[in-house]
C-alpha cells in the first residue's frame, strides 16, 4: 500500500506541521504588534494634553502647538515604537522640544523673508494672550478669573526664562518627570538638570515676587 501513496506520508506531515507552526508564529507576532500598538496609543493619550499646553506656552499658537504634538507623536511611533515603554516619555518630550524649536526657527526665517518682500504680508507673530485672561463664557466667578490671570502671568514668566531653564522647569514641575528622565529628555547630565531647575525657580521667584 505504501507504493500507492502519491506522497511520502512523513514528509506531508512535516510540511503541515511547519505550515501550522508558521501560522501560529505569525498570529502570535500580530498579537504582540496589536498589543504594542495599543500600549503606545494609551501612552500618547496620557501625555497629549500636557504636551499641548507645554508646546503652547512656547509657541503661543494653538495650531502650531497641535502640529508640534502630532509631529512628535508620529516620530515617536515610527522610530521608537519598538523601544521599551519606559523610554517613551523622555523620548517623546525630547522630540517635542526639537519640534518646538523647529517651529520657532521657521517662524523667524519666514518673518525675515516677508520683511524683504513687501506686499506678501508680514510674518505672523502671535498676538497678545487675551484669550488666556478672558474667562470662558459661563465661568464668571472671581476665583476663576483670578486663576486665569495667574496662569497667564506664570506662562509669560516661564516663556521668558532662558531656554534650558525653561525646559528643565516645564519637564520637572509641569510634567512631573524625575531628574533622570529630564536629563534624558534634555540630553544633558542630571547635575545640569538640577542646576537649570534651581536657577529657573530662583528666576521665577524674582520675577513673580514674594507674593506669588
Amino acid at each position, binding site marked *: 500500500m505504501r507504493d500507492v501513496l502519491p506522497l511520502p506520508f512523513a514528509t506531508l506531515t512535516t510540511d503541515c506541521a511547519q505550515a501550522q507552526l508558521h501560522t501560529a508564529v505569525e498570529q502570535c507576532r500580530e498579537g504582540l504588534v496589536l498589543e504594542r500598538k495599543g500600549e503606545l496609543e494609551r501612552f500618547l493619550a496620557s501625555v497629549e494634553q500636557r504636551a499641548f499646553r507645554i508646546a503652547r506656552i512656547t509657541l503661543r499658537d494653538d495650531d502650531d502647538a497641535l502640529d508640534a504634538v502630532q509631529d512628535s*507623536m508620529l516620530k515617536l511611533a515610527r522610530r521608537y515604537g519598538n523601544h521599551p515603554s519606559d523610554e517613551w516619555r523622555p523620548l517623546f518630550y525630547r522630540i517635542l522640544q526639537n519640534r518646538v524649536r523647529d517651529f520657532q526657527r521657521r517662524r523667524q526665517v519666514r518673518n525675515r523673508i516677508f520683511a524683504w518682500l513687501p506686499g506678501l504680508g508680514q510674518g505672523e507673530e502671535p498676538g497678545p494672550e487675551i484669550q488666556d485672561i478672558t474667562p470662558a463664557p459661563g465661568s464668571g466667578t472671581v476665583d476663576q478669573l483670578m486663576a486665569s490671570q495667574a496662569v497667564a502671568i506664570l506662562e509669560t514668566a516661564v516663556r521668558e526664562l532662558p531656554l534650558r531653564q525653561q525646559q528643565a522647569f516645564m519637564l520637572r514641575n509641569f510634567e512631573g518627570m524625575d531628574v533622570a528622565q529630564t536629563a534624558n529628555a534634555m540630553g544633558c547630565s542630571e547635575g545640569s538638570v538640577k542646576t537649570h531647575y534651581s536657577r529657573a525657580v530662583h528666576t521665577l521667584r524674582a520675577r513673580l515676587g514674594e507674593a506669588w
Partner: protein
Amino acid sequence: MVNGNERVNGNAAERAAELVQDPALEARSKALFDASVAALDGSTRSRLNQARHAALKQAQQRPRTVWWMPALASAALAMLVALILPRMQPQQQPLDASSNTAEEVSLAAADDLTLLMNDENLDLLEEMEFYTWLAESDAFESPAQPGPTES
C-alpha cells in the same frame, strides 16, 4: 581633563543647587498648570484625539521616496534664492537705517538663506516628499482603483 579641584567644585555646585528650593512656588506653579490642562476646551481635546489617531495611522505607512524629490527641492530653493537675491543688493533700503547698514542686512539675509538651504532642513524635504506622496495618493484614489503601494 577635569582636575581634582574642578571635580570638587562641580560636586559642591550640584549640592548647592539641590538645596535651592521654593516649595510654595513649585506647588502653585504645578497646580496652575494642572488646572490649565483640565480647562482645555472640547474642541482642543477633540483635535488632539484626531491628531493622535492620524499620527498612529501615518506611522504604519511609509512615504514613498521618489528619486527626483531631492532635486526638485533643490530647484525650489534655488528659485527662492533667485527671487530674494536681487533684493539683497547694497543699494536696497536697509530695514532699519538707524541701526543696520545695508551690508549687515545682506549678511543677515545670507545667513537666513543658509539656514534654509542647510542640512537641518532635511525634515522640510521629508515633509515635501510626504505631501507629494499624499497628493499622488489623492490623485490615484477612486472607488475602482487601489491606492499606490510602496515599491
